[in-house]
């Protein structure tokens, strides 16, 4: 009964089970879709490298990229050792 009353006078903070399901689904799908194939990861790595190489000389062998995930969010973390900066025309 209390639940019923709460629902009738629903406040913004009250989360319906549908709201909860919606949020859980968002996270679970994000994690599922993160499961990129090694081939896609390799493509991403190659693309990133090509962009960065325009600006600096990097150590391609030790560069690392990873998708890191925890309960709430996902981050693309890259560790790219820079060997030398290029002399760019307008600097």
């Amino acid at each position: 009964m209390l639940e019923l009353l709460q629902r009738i006078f629903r406040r913004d903070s009250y989360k319906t089970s549908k709201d909860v399901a919606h949020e859980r689904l968002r996270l679970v799908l994000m994690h599922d879709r993160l499961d990129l194939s090694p081939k896609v990861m390799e493509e991403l790595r190659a693309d990133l490298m090509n962009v960065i190489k325009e600006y600096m000389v990097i150590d391609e062998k030790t560069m690392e990229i990873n998708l890191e995930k925890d309960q709430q969010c996902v981050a693309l973390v890259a560790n790219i050792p820079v060997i030398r900066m290029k002399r760019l025309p307008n600097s």
Partner: protein
Amino acid sequence: MGEVFVITSGKGGVGKTTTTANIGTSLAMLGYRVVLVDADIGLRNLDVVMGLENRIVYDLVDVAHGRCRLRQALIRDRRFETLYLLPAAQTKDKNAISPEQMKALCEEIKKECDYLLVDCPAGIEQGFRNAVAGADRAIVVTTPEVAAVRDADRIIGLLEASEIRNPLLILNRIRPKMVRTGDMLDVDDVIEHLAIELLGIVPDDESIIVSTNRGEPAVLNSHSKAGEAYRNISRRIAGEEVPFMNLENGGGFMDRVRRLLGLRTS
């Protein structure tokens, strides 16, 4: 040349077989030549839902292995003479048929019908690969639950990998009352997550159980809400523009109270 649709879901028990039987029957009611293929090998179901279980002599695997001709295995529906069923085998051997054989079979059948519907087994293994092998298009069935939508997402990814583009979505077992009280994901939520085109919404409906008991698909019952939803879906498949059904009938008492108070009714 007909079009081959695979009806798939990932998760089990969400309504693939019910959907195949109802869309197939309804397309035949519209006058199209339809063949239903039960690809759920080892767990034959579609024959029972169609009420044709007593007429099976040969099955899909018999045809694929050349033990009989296609014509001998096709069972004609009791009600519509343009509707046929190719039943699944009840063998335990999961590899009884290969994707190549399935593809060849679909090619052969589609020459002589307008729509070929393949009822896919649950899961993402061999049975799934067989069922999609000959498909031109896919219909993904899901229910408004986290696990079912998640599996549908997996399946959509796998369909893309099999070069079956632009799958269509059927959201099955919607309960309008629960959607209204905020206790069920609604169609907009599901579409937002899956980002695919909506083909139809089917309500959770007791008439589905009654019709399965009788072996008479719900589309034959003019009073069935689910039957109406499936008839609309079939007309959409046939290219007609049919507005989505309004599943709200009147609105419950509490709903009206909330609306009076100017509160969100979702």
